[in-house]
């Protein structure tokens, strides 16, 4: 009941620190405390007001506690109220001092004036000091029996407060039973309502350890109790009516007459001015009739117009709450608002959260009869100043198209969006056109001709770019320049930050290759090389997979990557119907707003990142973009600590294009084209490709990154010079000059990872295998080492190695550069063997 202590506030610098003021107040209060002079109450009132203002703006005035209590010995109710307020605020922090107040609060509980009795009782219950519980029982007991309804109302809530401080005291005093009899017999509606809320809360919490509570809780839902409340519902105020209606929802009617009786009783609640009452009534109607399909439909008809009124009256926040509910209803019964679609047209000045829900409504209620009007209206919003809304409305148009109404006209409209030449409109539209084509392949001709005209340079958003790339791959045969557009994109591989786009590029390059091999061959080669060198695990894996499946059999590859597709008839719904039903059961609550059932946001384990509400104030705001940072960038960040960072990065970029195959001695154009033809034939012919064609495979794509064991010549025994020497300058120069001849990943055994806590141990270990370390760095989990080695026979033949070990995945990435490239595989084997022995006894 109290505002937080002063220390939690942030008083602005302009506010007085308050020390001198408080001392001043203290002395003034002391003077007045004993005075009986006329008019003293007025000056006390002013002082009390001051104290409370200070308290509110965050100045600690707890030091005048004693004086305040002394002054409160008065019959002036205004003063008393302020004093209670003060005491309520500081009692929790000063349990000892609050003992002082118990005395006069208890006395006031027996005052002549019912207001003072009530206020004192409320303050007493709001002290919330556990060791004062014993003083509460007496006053509460007499409060519940008070002949004034105001006091009883407060006493009832007081019982609930006591229960939360000390459940056992409350139960032992048999308060729940008293409340129950009050609930059923009291003449005052507010007392009854408070009894109901208190009992609901107490029994729900008691249920787990008391069978009696369970019975009592159920008895609240018995027919006599429900009818007792419903028959009197008009006597209650609007808030209590909500409470009763919420109770009635849980009631299980005995037969259909029972249902109709209740509905007749509550019919007029739909005309109540308070939207909360209307919504609660709607819930009762919907839940009661769930089992009666016909009546349920009639209920939808009946509740329609009150709900529409609620949307258009009241503040935008209220409309928002109502619209969320309408959206839930419309998903269950799309027809209900179909003819009222105009109510969901957006107004220019509405807040975007209302507009967004209205767009969702328009999408959900579109059917054969109104699609034309709705889509026309939605197209107006595409030019909206608010970009988020413009995007939403384009998405809405697309969704309606996918619902299969009047697709023809909608496709035209979507294509017109592309002509608006606004980046975000184009981006959204591309995503939609992609989905449309998946559902209606027959439109491909119209769409492709327009999509083909879009310059990929204008599209930056990953989703849109992916969509465009997907279409380029899928409809390569219809778009004359598809391979060249793809090639362009692939050449900028390094600048492409989104892994999603890179994945799509790989797939599109493959698809395009199957359709137009000669034109795509170069692009695919570059894409596969870049993909396999990619730091993103998925991209790397997909590239490698494509590479291998191509190598195995081109025909199989085509069947895997680009099979003939069936049109998608229904897109997967993101939410299961079970969850939707649960949300429906929790109608008229936060669940509907969040669109998830309550256990997902009230149970701790479902809550996600914000686990502990107490610490929540300190949680930093997580950047939304964190998902987009690919590991590559993190590695680069680590590189900054390293000696050789800058040169090495340049080399990375070079490798995808310049990396030459060590087994490709003859590499001329005529040769390639003949092989290409052979490949093309084997790709389109039904017979499986011969192993021979895969033998020449790497040459065709200009790849040199073979990891296929069959092709690897058995490594010649490589002897390394144990006393090799290379100065850092020379290493750096060589590293810059040489291309990467080999990239490899291998695993490190767990003992090795354990031993890696001291990185020096790895350096020593490698030295024993004649591989020397020149630089090392990084922090757990990523360590980076640069090694070199020399051939024993020829001191001029150096092997330079970069080795990145990730201790959490127990993997090492190795890049080898060699003067004599033909032996780099052999060196890599030696290196790998040495590394795998690390940590072994």
């Amino acid at each position: 009941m109290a505002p937080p202590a002063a220390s939690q506030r942030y008083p602005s610098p302009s506010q007085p620190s308050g020390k001198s003021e408080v001392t001043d107040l203290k002395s003034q209060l002391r003077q007045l405390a004993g005075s009986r002079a006329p008019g003293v109450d007025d000056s006390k009132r002013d002082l009390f007001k001051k104290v409370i203002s200070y308290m509110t703006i965050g100045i600690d005035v707890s030091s005048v506690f004693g004086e305040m209590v002394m002054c409160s010995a008065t019959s002036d109710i205004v003063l008393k109220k302020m004093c209670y307020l003060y005491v309520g605020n500081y009692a929790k922090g000063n349990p000892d001092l609050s003992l002082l107040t118990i005395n006069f609060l208890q006395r006031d509980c027996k005052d002549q004036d019912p207001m003072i009795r009530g206020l004192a009782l409320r303050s007493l219950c709001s002290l919330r000091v556990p060791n004062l519980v014993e003083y509460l029982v007496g006053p509460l007991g007499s409060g519940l029996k008070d002949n004034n309804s105001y006091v009883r109302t407060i006493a009832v809530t007081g019982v609930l407060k006591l229960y939360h401080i000390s459940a056992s005291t409350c139960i032992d005093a048999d308060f729940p039973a008293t409340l129950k009899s009050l609930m059923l017999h009291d003449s005052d509606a507010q007392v009854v309502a408070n009894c109901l809320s208190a009992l609901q809360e107490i029994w729900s919490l008691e249920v787990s350890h008391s069978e009696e509570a369970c019975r009592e809780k159920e008895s609240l839902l018995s027919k006599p109790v429900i009818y007792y409340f419903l028959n009197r519902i008009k006597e209650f105020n609007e808030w209590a009516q909500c409470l009763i209606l919420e109770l009635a929802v849980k009631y299980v009617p005995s037969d259909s007459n029972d249902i109709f009786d209740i509905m007749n009783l509550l019919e007029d609640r739909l005309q109540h001015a308070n939207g909360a009452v209307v919504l609660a009534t709607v819930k009762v109607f919907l839940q009661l009739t769930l089992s009666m399909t016909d009546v349920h439909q009639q209920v939808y008809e009946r509740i329609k117009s009150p709900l529409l009124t609620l949307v258009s009256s009241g503040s935008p926040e209220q409309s928002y709450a109502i619209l969320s509910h309408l959206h839930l209803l419309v998903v269950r019964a799309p027809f209900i608002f179909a003819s009222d679609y105009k109510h969901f047209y957006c107004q220019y000045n509405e807040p975007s959260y209302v507009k967004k829900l209205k767009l969702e409504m328009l999408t959900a209620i579109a059917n054969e009869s109104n699609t034309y009007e709705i889509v026309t209206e939605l197209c107006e919003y595409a030019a909206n100043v608010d970009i988020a809304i413009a995007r939403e409305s384009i998405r809405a148009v697309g969704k309606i198209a996918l619902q299969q109404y009047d697709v023809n006209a909608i496709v035209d409209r979507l294509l017109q969006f592309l002509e608006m030449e606004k980046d975000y409109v184009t981006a959204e539209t591309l995503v939609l056109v992609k989905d449309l084509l998946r559902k209606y392949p027959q439109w491909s001709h119209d769409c492709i001709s327009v999509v083909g005209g879009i310059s990929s340079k204008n599209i930056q958003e990953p989703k849109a770019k992916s969509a465009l790339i997907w279409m380029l791959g899928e409809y390569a045969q219809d778009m004359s320049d598809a391979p060249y557009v793809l090639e362009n994109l692939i050449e900028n591989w390094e600048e492409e930050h989104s892994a999603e786009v890179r994945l799509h590029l790989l797939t599109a390059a493959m698809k395009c290759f199957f359709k137009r091999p000669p034109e795509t061959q170069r692009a695919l080669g570059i894409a596969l090389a870049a993909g396999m060198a990619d730091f993103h695990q998925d991209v790397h894996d997909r590239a490698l997979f494509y590479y291998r499946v191509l190598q195995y059999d081109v025909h199989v590859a085509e069947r895997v990557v680009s099979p003939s597709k069936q049109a998608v008839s229904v897109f997967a719904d993101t939410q299961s119907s079970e969850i939707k039903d649960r949300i429906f059961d929790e109608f008229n609550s936060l669940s509907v707003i969040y669109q998830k059932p309550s256990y997902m946001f009230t149970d701790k384990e479902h809550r996600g990142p914000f686990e502990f509400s107490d610490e929540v104030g300190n949680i930093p705001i997580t950047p939304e973009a964190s998902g987009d940072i690919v590991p590559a960038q993190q590695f680069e960040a680590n590189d900054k600590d390293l000696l050789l960072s800058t040169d090495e990065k340049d080399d990375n970029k070079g490798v995808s294009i310049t990396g030459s195959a060590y087994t490709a001695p003859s590499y001329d154009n005529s040769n390639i084209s003949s092989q290409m033809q052979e490949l093309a034939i084997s790709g389109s012919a039904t017979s499986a490709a011969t192993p021979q064609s895969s033998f020449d495979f790497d040459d065709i794509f200009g790849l040199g990154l073979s990891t296929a064991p069959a092709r690897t010549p058995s490594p010649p025994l490589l002897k390394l010079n144990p006393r090799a020497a290379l100065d850092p300058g020379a290493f750096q120069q060589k590293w810059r000059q040489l291309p990467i001849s080999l990239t490899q990943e291998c695993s490190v055994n767990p003992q090795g990872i354990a031993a890696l806590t001291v990185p020096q141990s790895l350096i020593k270990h490698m030295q024993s295998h004649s591989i020397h370390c020149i630089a090392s760095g990084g922090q757990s989990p990523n360590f980076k080492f640069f090694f070199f080695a020399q051939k024993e026979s020829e001191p001029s033949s150096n092997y330079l190695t970069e080795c990145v070990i990730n201790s959490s995945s127990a993997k090492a990435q190795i890049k080898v550069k060699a003067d004599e490239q033909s032996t780099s595989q052999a060196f890599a084997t030696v290196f790998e063997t040495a590394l795998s022995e690390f940590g072994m006894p």
Partner: protein
Amino acid sequence: MPVAASAIYFLNLRGDVLINRTYRDDVGGNMVDAFRTHIMQTKELGNCPVRQIGGCSFVYMRISNVYIVIVVSSNANVACGFKFVVEAVALFKSYFGGAFDEDAIKNNFVLIYELLDEIMDFGYPQNLSPEILKLYITQEGVRSPFSSKPKDKPVPNATLQVTGAVGWRREGLSYKKNEVFLDIVESVNLLMSSKGNVLRCDVTGKVLMKCFLSGMPDLKLGLNDKIGLEKESEMKSRPAKSGKTIELDDVTFHQCVNLTRFNSEKTVSFVPPDGEFELMKYRITEGVNLPFRVLPTIKELGRTRMEVNVKVKSVFGAKMFALGVVVKIPVPKQTAKTNFQVTSGRAKYNPSIDCLVWKIRKFPGQTESTLSAEIELISTMGEKKSWTRPPIQMEFQVPMFTASGLRVRFLKVWEKSGYNTVEWVRYITKAGSYEIRC
């Protein structure tokens, strides 16, 4: 648990807590910091009025320069929460004398604490009816100097009892002169396409009452709505009088109206609260009389020039007139120079909202007025984006006119002492969102 608010906070625009009340201990005291860092200091603020952080949900509204935040820890009833805030603010306003803002809060700490304690106990809404609260509230509101003159003082420490059946009215009220003021206030919402088709048009109306009546009077209100008239003619078994009848799409009533009687007899009968209140609200979509027609023509002449011509016609009775007519005609951001002529009123270019603002103080019925403007634009190189024309917006008030055609047929007051009453009825139609696309 239907609604159990854990705390309510009042914050200013910077996020400082002006005043707060913690009703339950189930949320930490620093939840408001979470609100500040996660909602106020991010772009989230305008995105959604309900947000979850940690185990708590924040239900918030901005009213003038104050944020009112309700914190709940359970799966609360949101509609109820918002309604509570709206009602609470209305209550504060009645104490502060009309204004609810940061200053009003700072001047009324003690009163607000008192009110917050009475209107909600342990998170459950209690009584928000100003009449009843007058019995319990000891403080008087500090009114802002600009607000209207204080009404009668709240009755301090009244010993009057509230009768169970009529919770909104005290007994024993007495006035020398018994008067009832009834206002029908309608707002017309219009959305017209650039081709002049009405896309959407509806009226939301309110019947506001101000009662200064002694004792426990019973009132009966008759309107020219269809259902009411039909029922009446049926009961009196004579044909309905010819004349316009209005079909109300939906009606809601103040809690004082006897809804059972409305449903059976279709008459609005009630025992009114003392003073001002909103008796009923209604909504109409069919047969709306639009008070104004707007005919815009906008021509873009090349890249740097535009011609705007807006004709506004009043289509209500010639004897009536509209007041405070404002037409906001949007122009592009890069407007450099405007040159215009109007046949009545005054026009001005307002660069802060990118609009030509045309004001006409008094607009008689059955007349028309035009604005023609030439607009020069700063030519922007490489600016491909065409200007997305926002709609023309209009504001107005037309006294003695109802867009729906609704009329009061009778207002009967019956009290056991049988005094005479004076009834005043007024009508006014205002622009709600009156938008014409161009």
